[in-house]
């Protein structure tokens, strides 16, 4: 018996999936979720083998939801129309169903999942999440999980990012949040006119900078509105000067 979770904000869209699943008695729908928040909880609680996931959902998208889960299960995406998502799916050979889809197409997706099972799909899913972070809508915000709470941070509210082992600390007005990502990931996905990698371990929001002071030899330090000081390396100083037009 395999466990299934369906995550879609439209009740009828979930019922189609359930209906098509009746032909596959070895698959059991353990929970249905109307948004990504419920989805995160359900996945943590039930550890499903496969999820059906919509992209456009309230508050957070399907991609953002996957980012919050440490070891995402196998995913079959269901979406009606999203040019960016479809490009991402194709690039990473993840199976997806374009709504409306019929039983045949649905069965094929399940068969594909049955063949591949976990290993391949997991890697493809990770790559997909990486590339989805480059979508225009996701560059505007960062979704983090703080215990059981999910927080959506607008990039404009971010002071700076700091590397911390396998995590990145996202510093904001309300303190910092941890996200299981690399600095390179953020450097790539954030708007390069707004965020500059000032140092190997720091990315700073240029709109928060009030002044840049010299600090020891060859180094500088950026002083933010909040009073925080962010190290600036020699190459970082060059990049900052470019963006600020100095």
């Amino acid at each position, binding site marked *: 018996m395999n466990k299934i979770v369906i995550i879609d*904000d*439209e*009740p*009828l*869209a979930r*019922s*189609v999936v359930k*209906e098509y699943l009746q032909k596959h008695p070895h698959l059991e729908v353990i929970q249905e979720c*109307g*948004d990504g*928040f419920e989805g995160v909880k359900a996945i943590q609680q039930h550890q499903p083998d496969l999820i059906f996931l919509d992209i*456009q*959902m*309230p*508050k957070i998208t399907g991609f953002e939801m996957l980012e919050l889960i440490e070891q995402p299960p196998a995913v079959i995406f269901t979406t*009606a*129309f*999203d040019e960016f998502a479809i490009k991402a799916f194709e690039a990473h050979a993840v199976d997806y169903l*374009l*709504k*409306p889809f019929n039983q045949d197409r649905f069965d094929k997706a399940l068969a594909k999942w049955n063949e591949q099972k976990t290993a391949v799909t997991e890697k493809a899913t990770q790559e997909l999440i990486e590339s989805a972070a480059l979508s225009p809508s996701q560059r505007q*915000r960062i979704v983090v999980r703080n215990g059981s709470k999910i927080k*959506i941070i*607008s990039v404009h509210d971010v002071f700076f990012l700091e590397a911390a082992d396998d995590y990145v600390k996202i510093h904001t007005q309300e303190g910092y949040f941890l996200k299981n990502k690399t600095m390179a990931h953020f450097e790539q996905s954030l708007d390069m006119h707004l965020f500059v990698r000032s140092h190997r371990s720091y990315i700073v929001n240029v709109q928060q900078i009030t002044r840049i002071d010299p600090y020891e030899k060859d180094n500088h330090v950026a002083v933010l509105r909040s009073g925080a000081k962010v190290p600036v390396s020699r190459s970082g100083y060059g990049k900052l000067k470019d963006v600020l037009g100095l």
Partner: protein
Amino acid sequence: MANSPLSIIKFRIIFIASWLIIMADHAMLLHFYALPWDVAIYDSLISNVLFLLACLLVMTVLRYYLPRGQQYINVFALCLLLTIVWLLLSKWLLKLFLGYQAGYTELLRNSLSIRFSMAFLLLGFITMVSILWYSQLEQKEQEERKKDAEKMARDAELFKLRQQLQPHFLFNSLNSINALIGSRPAEARKMVQQLSDFLRGTIKKEETQWVTLQEELQYLQLYLDIEKVRFGNRLATEIEIDEATTALKLPALLLQPIVENAIKFGLYDTIGETIIKIYAAKVENNLVIKVLNPFDPETSSPRQGTGFGLKSVQRRLYLLFARNDLVTTEAKENIFITIVRIPQKL
């Protein structure tokens, strides 16, 4: 091809009358210099018929060739050349026909310089008038072409704005129908009907067409019914319309994208039930429509609420009224308000 100024009867009469006056004047002047009437009249007739041909030639040339910039020198040269040719030709003809008259040859020789300057001046004048006439015609044509092009561009833009039906909406609606077919076929059939009526509405209505608020609301209801099937209990609507506004007019299909924007913003930015409120009132001479949707001020800025839908509405109203202030938005706590004002024709 541009019409010659002589194609207008008024100008033709003026032209012929001037020519007759000049001819009479010419004859009288010669008679005054002691030529008998018949000789004077023949002289005038020969000179002025030839001159008339020269004038018509200049006008015809300018009709096909309008000088630009440096080319005015060519026109000047043409006038000069024509005057000289005219002078030589008329001198030869006059001598041939009227040379028998005693003293005529001498008078002709003495008057050559006067004949030349008069002819050159008159021909120059005719040339100038023709150039003015044709360039003004050309300008008018250009303006008309520009106006036509602008109108076509505007119509095309309006058409495009109206056609931007959201594929997301269409495919999700089809997906809902797909779901209903298995479990509740009667409802599926009803939704197919609603979707068809809705789509027909977007195709049928002319962009420039104005409809009453009541008609627009009927159309909106089709859209709302479909969305309610899609989102189930999550979506609720409240519509409050002043009695006085139902007959007021607005451009067709204007309301739906505004409400669509509000629904998307409301549904995707909050969790739980979303209530969309629509109010209409008459303020001064405007139909004022307010659409309210909830949003989460903690995670999104009201700026995000002015998505594509509102921009196209704003653009449409600008094209129709040449005003940019007819769509405004505001945020009050967790409610986002879109206000549209539609000026009424007096």
